[in-house]
């Protein structure tokens, strides 16, 4: 498995193309973001879109000759949606890269430690058992989804720990076991819920239909804190690609590092899932795409994956809201539809070079 992560190409050759590659990637992500704000299911002339945004930041700079509805669409619907999609995409992609490195397993994704099933159970309980938003100041769904995710990961940690060690095998097994147990519970809650089942399914499918600024502010602190830790300590994942004993001999506290990275990854995944539901494929595919292009060095891989994840998700959501306009397509369908084949294409093209 390590072979997939370590290229045969010398690292220096990769490094030579990291800097221009990063600039190109950053440019691409920026372009995607600008496109996503410029276009949507409602056709607003692109200059008007940007005039509206400019006017918001520098009031009075441009004379507002557009109907207020257009300003609402751009500022309260489209802008928070693009930003939220970007935040969620970078969270899932960075968490995916972290777990793939942590478990030395190319099939690991952000949900490997039970985050998704914990969050789903929390959300289902909130949807089925709690009164609706009208009776509470804020929706209980994200709060309970986040709590469920955190509790699930805590359970996985406690079950996966062996004598103060944190071996990857038991951690993965605990993740799978807790995950399927919670999924079973969730199915039961869905059946109990009867009439609320569609709301639960809609939540499980995930997406950004209801994105607003409140969700952005809800997610941002967790993402920033988690991402900072991952980028600051992620380079040590390179050492974790060795056997545990070798890593220890190199002076790395394997178990503490593993705990720190696992918790940070879980935290940003939980925050992402809480605001957007469970969106598949991004956390699995984007790290591999970045690895295929930029090589397996985690020092560059983690920040670049976060960047690429944002771009990928924003693009997927742009497709989700414009393809069948005025009808929405679940963004998870788009990520799977686009991500899967594109991933296979890259894999096919670069197979010889990487493996």
């Amino acid at each position, binding site marked *: 498995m390590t072979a997939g992560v370590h290229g045969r190409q010398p690292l220096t050759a990769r490094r030579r193309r990291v800097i221009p590659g990063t600039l190109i990637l950053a440019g691409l992500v920026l372009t995607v973001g600008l496109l996503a704000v410029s276009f949507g299911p409602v056709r607003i002339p692109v200059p008007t879109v940007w005039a509206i945004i400019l006017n918001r930041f520098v009031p009075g700079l441009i004379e507002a000759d557009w109907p207020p509805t257009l300003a609402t669409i751009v500022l309260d619907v489209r802008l928070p949606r693009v930003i939220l999609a970007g935040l969620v995409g970078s969270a899932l992609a960075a968490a995916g890269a972290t777990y793939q490195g942590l478990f030395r397993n190319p099939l690991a994704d952000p949900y490997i430690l039970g985050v998704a099933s914990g969050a789903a159970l929390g959300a289902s309980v909130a949807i089925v058992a709690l009164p609706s938003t009208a009776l509470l100041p804020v929706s209980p769904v994200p709060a309970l989804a986040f709590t469920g995710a955190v509790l699930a990961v805590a359970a996985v940690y406690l079950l996966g720990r062996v004598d103060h060690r944190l071996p990857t095998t038991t951690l993965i097994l605990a993740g799978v076991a807790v995950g399927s147990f919670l999924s079973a519970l969730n199915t039961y809650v869905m059946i109990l819920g009867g009439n609320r089942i569609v709301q639960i399914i809609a939540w499980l499918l995930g997406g950004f239909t209801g994105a607003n600024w409140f969700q952005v502010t809800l997610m941002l602190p967790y993402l920033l804190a988690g991402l900072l830790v991952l980028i600051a300590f992620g380079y040590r994942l390179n050492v974790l690609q060795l056997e545990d004993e070798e890593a220890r001999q190199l002076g790395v506290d394997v178990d503490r590092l593993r705990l720190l990275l696992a918790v940070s990854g879980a935290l940003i995944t939980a925050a992402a899932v809480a605001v957007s539901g469970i969106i598949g494929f991004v956390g699995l595919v984007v790290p591999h795409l970045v690895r295929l292009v930029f090589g397996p060095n985690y020092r560059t891989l983690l920040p670049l994956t976060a960047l690429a994840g944002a771009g990928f998700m924003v693009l997927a959501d742009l497709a989700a809201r414009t393809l*069948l306009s*005025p009808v929405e397509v679940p963004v998870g369908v788009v990520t799977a539809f686009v991500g899967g084949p594109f991933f296979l294409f890259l894999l096919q093209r670069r197979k010889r070079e990487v493996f």
Partner: protein
Amino acid sequence: MGSRLTRRQLIRGAITLAALGPLAAACAPAPQPPSPPAPAFPVTVTDDDGQTVTIEREPQRLITLAPSNTEIVYALGIGDRLVAVSDYSDYPPEAAAKPKVGYIRVDIERVIAYNPDLILATGAHRQQVTPQLRQRGLKVITLDPKNIDHVFDNILLVGRATGQTATAEKLVADLKARVRQIETKVRQAKTRPRVFFELDKSLFTVGPGSFIHDMIVRAGGENIAGDADRPYPQLSLEVLLQRDPEVIIITDIGPYGGETPESVRARPGWQTISAVKNNRIVPINPDLVNRPGPRIVDGFEAIARALHPELFSFRLPTPIDRPAGTYARLTQQLSEVFN
């Protein structure tokens, strides 16, 4: 997706329904003093599956597999013949006390154990349930209406199959008269308001091919999701804002749905919508528009009233001068529930 939504809607207003109890009287026709001569059984009918079903004797042990079918049986005045009903059958209130046999997933064993001589199923049972029941020699009639007139045909069909032809004909004549009355009224409307019919707050709505879309058009409204490619689409918020509905109908109400005109008004970005500015967010009991039974006419009227309040704007009877008529009682009940 469609059937799930329908199912959810079917069930959702359960709690508001309890308050609507006395409406039963409004829908059930007055008993006919001279009992019409019972049509000679056996009767042969063709149901919405295209199945020809021959019923040898007047059925005495009925089971319904959907709340709408339960409501039809009660409206025909033979609710006492129901040995079991579907889950969520909560109208009229006495239906809630009957034994339950499931809804989309039906407990076949229990159905057989009740030894029914007629089962009223729906299109949702076509794949899994109905064939199993028919295999065991049970008489099943499938009701799968596509619009209001089809509901009336279904009521007549059930009437014939249960020996209540006269009652059914009277009921349907009354219901049709009410529909005609509403449509005549609506024809005087000078406006054709744009309407957003919200199934839930993730902006699932109704499109062409759905029962409700049909009712909106007939009630003189323009569905803003009228160009959608499916019966139950999810609309983009951007598109919703741009198409600027003049009326918003919400059905995800009650303690669990919990949407209210106030909660809709408070949503970020919704303040530019005409319906919000002009205070035209109308809650409608989802059971009235989602259950293809006799109360569908109440639902039709509720939609027409939401779209053209000026045509229906008479003063609600006060408790003092309120006449004893069922219609007055109905409006009273509705206004108590929804105001």
